[in-house]
């Protein structure tokens, strides 16, 4: 069992879910309520990571953010940020590939809040902000937790992008899924099996949470 890889995986998954959530709340609420003509294009762009092979995303990130690239050079010079073969780079890549996993359940949850309930809040004198906090977010809460749980589970299992962008640096960018691949290459099936079981258990727990929360939706009680 590679405990360093487990630590990197859990840290990456937890941070991805936590840091992706605030912006996703804003974007998904906008997508759920907007009548803008640009909405289908934005929705398509946000779903793209679901369809593209992870290696393709990884390749683009590697070439666009690497030290030889304009963006990579600018980031290194002005912000001291290196996004290739670093944990920060992994986190950035995880944000991108998890956008559909986070935004889809959130968007569906916000879209399920009836317009009349939102309007009732406004007519009751609640500001847009209070309407969001007191009415929309609590009603969309199962979707929020589902988005976070799916993002967490998906990040745990991600392989292609992680390998392309992060490489395989022990304690920094080697996640459980990379470590499993590594152990299989070294014919250490016992360790690979242990780590695989951990991933299966964590993913199962995350999905169980999603389904359990889906059953406790106050919008479905009526």
């Amino acid at each position, binding site marked *: 069992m590679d405990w360093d890889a487990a630590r990197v995986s859990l840290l990456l998954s937890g941070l991805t879910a936590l840091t992706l959530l605030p912006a996703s709340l804003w974007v998904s609420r906008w997508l759920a309520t907007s009548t803008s003509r640009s909405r289908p294009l934005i929705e398509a762009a946000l779903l793209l990571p679901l369809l593209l092979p992870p290696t393709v995303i990884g390749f683009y990130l590697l070439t666009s953010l690497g030290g030889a690239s304009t963006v990579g050079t600018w980031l290194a010079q002005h912000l001291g940020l290196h996004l290739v073969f670093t944990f920060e780079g992994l986190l950035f890549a995880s944000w991108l590939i998890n956008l559909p996993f986070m935004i889809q359940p959130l968007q569906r949850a916000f879209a399920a809040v009836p317009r*009349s*309930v939102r*309007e*009732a809040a406004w*007519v*009751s004198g609640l*500001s847009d902000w209070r309407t969001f906090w007191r*009415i929309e977010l609590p009603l969309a809460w199962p979707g929020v937790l589902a988005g976070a749980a799916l993002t967490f589970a998906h990040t745990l299992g991600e392989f292609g992008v992680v390998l392309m962008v992060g490489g395989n640096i022990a304690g920094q960018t080697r996640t459980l899924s990379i470590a499993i691949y590594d152990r299989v290459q070294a014919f250490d099936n016992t360790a690979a099996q242990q780590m695989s079981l951990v991933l299966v258990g964590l993913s199962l727990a995350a999905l169980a949470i999603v389904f359990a929360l889906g059953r406790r939706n*106050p919008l479905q009680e*009526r």
Partner: protein
Amino acid sequence: MLSVEVFQTMPVPLAARFDCRPGELVALVGPSGSGKSTLLRCIAGLMHPSRGRISCNDRIWFDSESKLRLAPQQRRVGLVFQHYALFPHLSALSNVALASARPDADTHAADLLGRLGLVGLAERRPSELSGGQQQRVALARALAREPDVLLLDEPFSAVDQPARHELYRELAELHRAVALPIVLVTHDLHEARRLADRMVIIDGGTTLQQGTPAQVLSQPRNARVAELVGIQNHFEGVFLHGSEAGWGRLQWGADGGTELHVRDKGRIEEGAAVSWVVPAEHIGVHRHAPRGPNVQRARLSEALPLGDIALCRFDMLNVRAAVQLHQTTAQLQRGELVVGEEVFLQFDPSGVHIMPRHVGLRWRKGEKRTLSL
């Protein structure tokens, strides 16, 4: 006082103008899709019409000229939505308290729930309440805002019949107790007649007529209003001045047909084609020719039993027209009225209401022609 003047062509055409005084209950009545709810949304600030002005108690809420558009939060409107739109994750108490701006919001909310007969139900969520109870919570929430105007959007449509009558009574009590302008949207004429001080008939977003329910139902302004309010005995004819001052003649039917003695209010020109209605209570049914004016021979051609009453169709013998009246089933059973026999119908001149004919009135295919009665 609430004053509303709104006009627009898209997306829903609107050309509406009406007032509602404090303590007055005005019913906006019209068929489905007539723009009544849209009008209510304009008052609440949930949508803005292209042109117009909406003010309440000398405060302007919307004015297209000065580009003033107050948000719903700034309008102090209490709105009861058609399906209540309660916050499903909150208790009845929290639903109401959230709308109260008072420092003691919870006490205020509990007091309102108590006044509306919801003692002991404060901690229940909307899903644990009956339709009638949910409606009361929605009403309490609307009142918790301490609104300047109370808007009710078909508030009884989702409630079953027994609960509806109880709620009618409660709304009537509330109407007496609060000095607020109350605007009720409904497609149910019975409801409007029972609850409203004034009715505003709306069709295609346009206010066609306003007045007390008795006025609108007995003196519709035009043929469309007569159709909308479900007046069955609605005919066409030609108006002629009479020899006596204040009296005129109504030529009923083509080629002379027959004539009725009617009031001449000096508003209609000699020879004008008119529509006319006569409420059922102004038509007498007699087996023997009575004394007085406007006695016409008719034959009872059909009697459709509807429980205690029967819908009877009388074919006029001097004109190609039929009069529909409700008679008691007992009258038919006692043989006072027999299908196929001749009777005499007497039209009370004061009940005959004559209107200019609505030229170009065309029904759209599949359109609901009358309001539910």
